């Protein structure tokens, strides 16, 4: 039997996958209802439809977050409230109805993303259902056609639906369709000053600004236009994609985990309620001596700590937590009625990161916790992941392989290991330079990430070498999936200046027979990879 926590995670993933499949049935139905709502002749015909739609939305609002589809749940909640208000008024607001219907029909876009799930059964199906989760739509405003095309193409290779526009009028026409998820504007475009000045930090669509000048004033203008990213020319496309990914992962990510330590249970539960309503996962610990158990079990990303508790003061507890290297990254926020600044400072000097003073407004609480959590997660991702690809680093993916192989031996389930290497990569670097080579690596990383399941682990093993482990997956299934990815990859067009070129990769796949060690499997996968290279490259070999 596997480690119980991991086993639970797997079962939760399985349920999440089932939920995702259910969404694939329910959301088109909801979309059809929305269409009927739009076509309804009068209010009397609209109201019963609206009632049915609202019931669906209510269910989604209550369930999607539990399965990791937080963005879907939030949007459903927002629409539910709007629909509820119209039902209450006995009348739909005609001016808002088209947007309401469009939002309903776009819910499935949110369902493709996130979700903790992959599945274990049936496997082949899970792979096939996993089309492109990264279907975010990006509009680019750029006057220089070479730059515009290259950004468009590269982002397409990275798995986005990117579209380049040379004129502001074309861009506006596209934006009027309200089907764009993020916007990239070159601030050197002749229409950019006007466009940017017209936006505020409240304007809905996420914005990235690219600019030829890196000075303070340009960056300030970008911030005031609501930009969430600023990139200087010459453009480094992987960092542009990094910014996009950061943006979308913040939008779609798993809820933040917050631990509240307070002996006042009522108050702690109240805080917990407020934070939960903002889709954070919260646990309350009211016995300071048990805090380490909570830390280990729940792995919070932010800790809210009461300063005055009977057996142990907040700062003492913070110091105990800081004894353990594992928790160094977790921000500690004190909750206290203490308004004396010098005593607050003393507490912070001992350990801890921030102070919020009771009574605290709901908004202040949410903001303090959210900003700390967001920062902590960014840092933690930056430290654990390969900076170019966002994949696991060498040591971490190896560890993951050992872990999965050990589990496969215990559970007697097939598990496959894949080693993969880009063909003639040195030539790419030599001919086109490292930045272009980086684009190739990143495109492959994204492709793999999109096509593999969430339960699979994927890492950058070396320069142009990748390693993946696919639990509950036979060698044949793994070979089939990697072969599809190989074919897709060879079709990607890369651009270096005016030149275009294509790349390929070779891969070796091995299925565990339930006896080999992780080291042996890695060796076998490497041999299969060698055979693929030796046999003419651009192919996937299964170890025999």
């Amino acid at each position, binding site marked *: 039997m596997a480690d*119980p926590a991991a*086993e*639970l995670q797997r*079962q*939760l993933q399985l*349920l999440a996958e*089932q*939920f995702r499949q*259910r969404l694939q049935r329910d959301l088109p139905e909801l979309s059809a209802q929305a269409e009927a709502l739009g076509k309804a002749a009068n209010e009397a015909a609209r109201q019963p439809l609206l009632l049915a739609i609202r*019931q669906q939305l*209510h*269910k989604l*609002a*209550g*369930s*999607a*977050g*539990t*399965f990791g589809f*937080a963005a879907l*749940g939030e949007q459903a*909640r927002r629409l*539910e409230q709007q629909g509820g208000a119209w039902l209450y008024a006995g009348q739909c607001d005609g001016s808002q109805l088209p947007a309401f219907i469009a939002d309903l029909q776009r819910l499935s876009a949110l369902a493709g993303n996130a979700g903790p799930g992959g599945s274990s059964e049936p496997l082949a199906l899970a792979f096939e259902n996993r089309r492109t989760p990264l279907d975010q739509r990006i509009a680019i405003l750029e006057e220089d056609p070479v730059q515009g095309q290259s950004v468009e193409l590269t982002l397409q290779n990275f798995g986005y639906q990117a579209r380049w526009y040379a004129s502001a009028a074309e861009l506006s026409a596209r934006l009027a369709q309200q089907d764009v998820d993020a916007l990239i504007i070159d601030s050197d475009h002749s229409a950019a000053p006007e466009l940017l000045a017209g936006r505020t930090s409240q304007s809905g669509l996420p914005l990235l600004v690219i600019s030829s000048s890196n000075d303070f004033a340009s960056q300030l203008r970008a911030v005031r236009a609501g930009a969430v990213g600023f990139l200087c020319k010459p453009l480094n496309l992987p960092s542009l994609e990094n910014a996009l990914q950061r943006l979308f992962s913040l939008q779609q990510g798993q*809820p933040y985990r917050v631990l509240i330590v307070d002996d006042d*249970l009522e108050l702690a539960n109240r805080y917990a*309620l407020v934070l*939960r*309503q903002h*889709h954070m*996962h*919260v*646990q*309350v610990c009211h016995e300071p001596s048990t805090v380490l158990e909570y830390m280990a079990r*729940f792995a919070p990303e932010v800790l809210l700590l009461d300063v005055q508790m009977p057996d142990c003061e907040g700062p003492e507890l913070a110091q105990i937590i800081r004894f353990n290297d594992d928790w160094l990254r977790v921000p500690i926020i004190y909750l206290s009625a203490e308004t004396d600044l010098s005593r607050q400072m003393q507490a912070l000097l001992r350990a801890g990161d921030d102070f919020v003073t009771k009574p605290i407004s709901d908004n202040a609480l949410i903001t303090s916790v959210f900003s700390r959590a967001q920062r902590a997660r960014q840092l933690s991702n930056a430290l654990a992941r390969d900076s170019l690809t966002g994949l696991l680093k060498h040591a971490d993916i190896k560890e993951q392989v050992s872990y999965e192989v050990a589990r496969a031996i215990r559970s007697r389930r097939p598990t496959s290991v894949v080693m993969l290497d880009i063909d003639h990569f040195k030539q790419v670097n030599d001919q086109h330079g490292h930045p272009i080579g980086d684009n190739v690596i990143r495109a492959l990383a994204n492709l793999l990430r999109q096509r593999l399941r969430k339960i699979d682990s994927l890492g950058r093993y070396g320069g142009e070498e990748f390693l993946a482990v696919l639990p509950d997956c036979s060698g044949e299934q793994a070979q089939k999936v990697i072969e599809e990815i190989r074919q897709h990859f060879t079709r990607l067009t890369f651009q270096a200046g005016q030149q275009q070129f294509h790349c390929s990769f070779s891969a070796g796949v091995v299925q565990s027979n339930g006896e080999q060690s992780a080291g042996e499997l890695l060796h076998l996968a490497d041999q299969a990879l060698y055979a693929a290279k030796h046999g003419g490259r651009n192919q996937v070999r299964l170890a025999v």
Partner: protein
Amino acid sequence: MAELKRILHVEDDRSIQAVAKLALETLGGFEVLSCLSGQEALDQVQGFNPDFILLDVMMPGMDGPATLSKLRELVDIEQVPVAFMTAKVQPQEIEQYRQLGAREVIVKPFDPMTLAAQVRSIWSRVHG
């Protein structure tokens, strides 16, 4: 001293039913009986003899509050705490649910990793 072992969960959404059952059984070590409707809960409650009842608020047919008022004729809710689960939480609603006899309102979407702890904490406030 009463012990928390059996939980009756009433929820019309099968996905939520499954995830709650898994979370409560695996993380809490409880025995869980899931019912798809208020009526099913009324039929099952005496045979199952739960220590705790989790009730979804919005269900087709008999909703959570209606189910609770009928359940009160069958079980002693002083001893068997009832918690509502709902996605809509306005303070006045919580108050209203309390007046009906519910001990707590668990906000949806709930976190499967913490559901068992939440239930235990409500239980210990009643029986602690």
